[in-house]
């Protein structure tokens, strides 16, 4: 099995993601692929890592979303492959129109790096199979433009389709403005594409794949119970 990390100029969590995936997915071939000339034809799982692709100039993720590699990514999605966009990767997926919505600067108008709590809102995805609905995870965020905008209609539709993956919450799952680190609509921290095989999320699971230092809640996302997907023969 192969997992590829799509690297854009300015991606800066690509190596981190590679290291985390290698420990989370033993037996997989994990590789970073430079966006220019990327070939995803042999992969089952592609991660768009965090960072500042193209410096996030113009709009976060905008320039990367116009890379030819995005066509490869669409082909992978078309084949039923798994795609995870983390932080800047989420922004790229949104700018590419693969996930709905848009991003603006955090309402606090500055970068925010800290641990947050997330409530798992859906199980309709291989990335979420390891969790219970309503389970609370602790993951770090680190972003400047994480204010995820959705119209109310879009939000309802996503919620009804089980495509809201995570909501920012308190340690006991409490939801509210004071738990929302960036002003995202309804505190949405991660969403799924139709079918659940594409996940975009602002928090960084690769930074929480390390039980030895007490940060392990991201492992379940990276090591997604891919078993079920793979056994289904779809990939």
């Amino acid at each position: 099995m192969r997992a590829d990390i799509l690297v854009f100029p300015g991606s800066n969590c690509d190596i981190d993601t590679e290291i985390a995936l290698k420990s989370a997915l033993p037996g997989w071939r994990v590789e970073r692929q430079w966006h220019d000339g990327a070939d995803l034809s042999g992969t089952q799982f592609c991660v768009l890592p965090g960072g500042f692709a193209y410096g996030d100039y113009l709009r976060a993720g905008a320039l990367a979303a116009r890379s030819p590699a995005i066509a490869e990514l669409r082909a992978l999605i078309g084949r039923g492959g798994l795609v995870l966009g983390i932080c800047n990767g989420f922004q790229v997926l949104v700018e590419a129109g693969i996930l709905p919505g848009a991003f603006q600067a955090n309402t606090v108008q500055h970068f925010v790096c800290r641990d947050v709590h997330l409530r798992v809102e859906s199980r309709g995805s291989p990335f979420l199979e390891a969790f219970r609905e309503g389970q609370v995870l602790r993951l770090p965020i680190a972003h400047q433009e994480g204010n995820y905008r959705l119209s109310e209609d879009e939000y309802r539709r996503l919620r009804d389709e089980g495509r809201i993956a995570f909501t920012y919450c308190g340690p006991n799952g409490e939801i509210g403005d004071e738990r929302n680190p960036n002003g995202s609509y309804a505190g949405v921290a991660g969403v799924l594409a139709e079918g659940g095989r594409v996940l975009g999320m602002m928090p960084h699971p690769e930074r929480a794949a390390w039980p030895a230092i007490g940060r392990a809640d991201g492992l379940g996302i990276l090591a997604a119970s891919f078993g079920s997907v793979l056994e289904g023969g779809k990939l």
Partner: protein
Amino acid sequence: MPEFHAQLRVRLRPGVLDPAGQAVAHSLKDLGFAAREVAVGKLLELTLPAPTAEAAEAEVRRMAAELLVNPVLEDFELEISAR
């Protein structure tokens, strides 16, 4: 081929929250200024070759649609001038 200068004034669409504008409004107020409806947008400028101003405009509109402007949140005004 003649060259044209394009200026795109990109604004948030009406109704879209403008936290940057609010922050600036706040700071202006703290400094004792009386400003309302503060909005922060982008000014994009570029030069391009085109046979006519109309062609240049059409080309810049394509750039806007493909990259420069995010239609989910943004509107723009375009001004083309000969160089």
